[in-house]
């Protein structure tokens, strides 16, 4: 079952080991800027996921015909086309969210996570693997966005899913949870510096978990080669 193993590896790489948000630290600009609420994070995460899957598939499909010298502009064009589609869709069906994401929606074009995957993986692998890789990387990125959004929204406003109806429709108004009541908002968590600090803690937590995992693994005994030091001058 070679193919299965390959896909398992793609899942593991995208969600944890090579996570674009936590490990590659790509696409930090939207990651830090718009994750002030879960709704924003979810909206941007879904948009990025969609663009990533489509661009990986397309790049992989045309990889035989793209000359090496001009590959980057072509990738950017492909990504830009999909971003425009997503932007138009969001403008039509989730206008409130479209306004609150602002400039960061078109800026997905320059998201290094997407062009990085196109360059590093999709342009060298068949369509099936490339689209699956896009899906996993996108989910990994969205999960980091969601975690950041959750922490920052709870710290900053004491709520969860505030404004979810902008993305999901009017039924989502019931999703809003008031975790605790503040007299005043904790602005640092909502502003970008708070995102940097929370992001630092997330990366630290990921590294701590990795350390724990390696410690738990059975150690392979290394054979010690003992040498007798012969040194007549020493006393």
């Amino acid at each position, binding site marked *: 079952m070679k193919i299965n193993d390959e896909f398992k590896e793609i899942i593991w790489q995208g969600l944890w080991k090579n996570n674009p948000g936590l490990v590659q630290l790509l696409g930090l600009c939207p990651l830090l800027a718009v994750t002030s609420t879960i709704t924003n994070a979810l909206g941007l995460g879904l948009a990025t996921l969609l663009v990533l899957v489509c661009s990986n598939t397309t790049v992989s499909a045309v990889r035989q015909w793209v000359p090496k010298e001009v590959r980057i502009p072509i990738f950017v064009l492909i990504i830009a086309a999909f971003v425009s589609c997503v932007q138009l869709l969001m403008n039509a069906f989730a206008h409130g969210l479209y306004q609150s994401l602002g400039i960061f929606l078109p800026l997905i074009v320059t998201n290094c996570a997407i062009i990085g995957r196109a360059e590093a993986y999709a342009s060298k692998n068949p369509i099936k693997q490339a689209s699956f890789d896009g899906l996993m990387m996108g989910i990994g990125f969205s999960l980091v966005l969601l975690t950041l959004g959750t922490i920052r929204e709870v710290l900053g406003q004491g709520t969860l899913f505030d404004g979810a109806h902008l993305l999901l429709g009017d039924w989502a108004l019931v999703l809003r949870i008031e975790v605790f009541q503040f007299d005043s908002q*904790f*602005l640092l968590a909502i502003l970008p510096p708070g995102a940097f600090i929370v992001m630092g803690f997330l990366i630290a937590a990921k590294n701590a978990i990795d350390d724990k995992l390696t410690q738990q693994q059975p150690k392979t005994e290394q054979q010690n080669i003992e040498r007798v030091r012969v040194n007549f001058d020493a006393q």
Partner: protein
Amino acid sequence: MAFWIASSPHNHIQSETSALMRLVIYATLPGIFAQWYFFGWGNIIHIALASCTVLFAEFSVLSLRHKKISSELFDGSAILTAVLLGISIPALAPWWISVFGALFAIVIVKQLYGGLGHNPFNPAMAAYVMLLISFPVQMTLWQPPLNLMSFDLNFQNTLSTIFTGYTIDGFSTEQLRVHVDGFTMATPLDTLKTDLTLGLTTSESFKSPIFGQHFGIGWEWVNIGFLLGGIFLIIKKAIDWVTPVSFLISLFFCSLLAFFISPDSSASTMFHWFSGATMLGAFFILTDPVSGATSTKGRIIFAALAGLLVYLIRKFGGYPDAIAFAVLLCNMSAPLIDQYTRPRAYGHQSEKK
């Protein structure tokens, strides 16, 4: 008998971190006394709160990091951070402001970067900036000096205001801030800034009772208190005189230049020296040996840059006082300043022409 031969240096200074920190804490006393005299017990309560929090935070982090607790906990640097933070917070701010600020200063700004000697930013000032941008309402609860207040603010009332938001008689913080004339008062710097945006000239603004006869009732004496403490530190050789002098001269020249250009819209040089946190910043914050520049030339540039930034932010920025922001910006540039002001090695021969 044989003589014990040691290599140089033969003359050691037997001062430890804790002794130096204790000296700096003593030197803040005149300023704190002036604050107590003009603004009541608030700052002393905040200093006490911040000190307790700081010791607790330092103890927890040190035990998590498996460090030697007894020596590092009582080296005085954490207490000094708490004292500086407590001095800078508005006297009537709620209790959780100083607790939260102290936690942030120790856990995130100091210990996460590796503890004393490794923090790139001044912990007290970083915590102050964090509080100021996170809780702008609570961090601008400046009260008028005691003799301009319409209420009697004794120790019990201050304590009750800090912990509950109301005095024992039930007056709220907002009511306490009301002036004898019925106006809510800010700091002299804030008043001047607001008046200038309203189109008044500096001399018209100075008729406001908050300025008193000189540069602000109470504020001038608080600054003189810190100036005295700073001179004491310089005499004791705890701090280098270069930093404060360079800072004050830079601020002096910036405000003098602006005063020559447009006297109606800029305050006098001495107003900039003796209001806000100028003296505290000059002698106690900028002289922080960890986050500042190291060489003498570097310190001159570092402090002059701080003076320029303080003036620019006070004059053109959105916040009335600027010491904390200027210090953080200078902390960021300190490694670069150090890079370009490395002193020549001793005995280096200059190239002959």
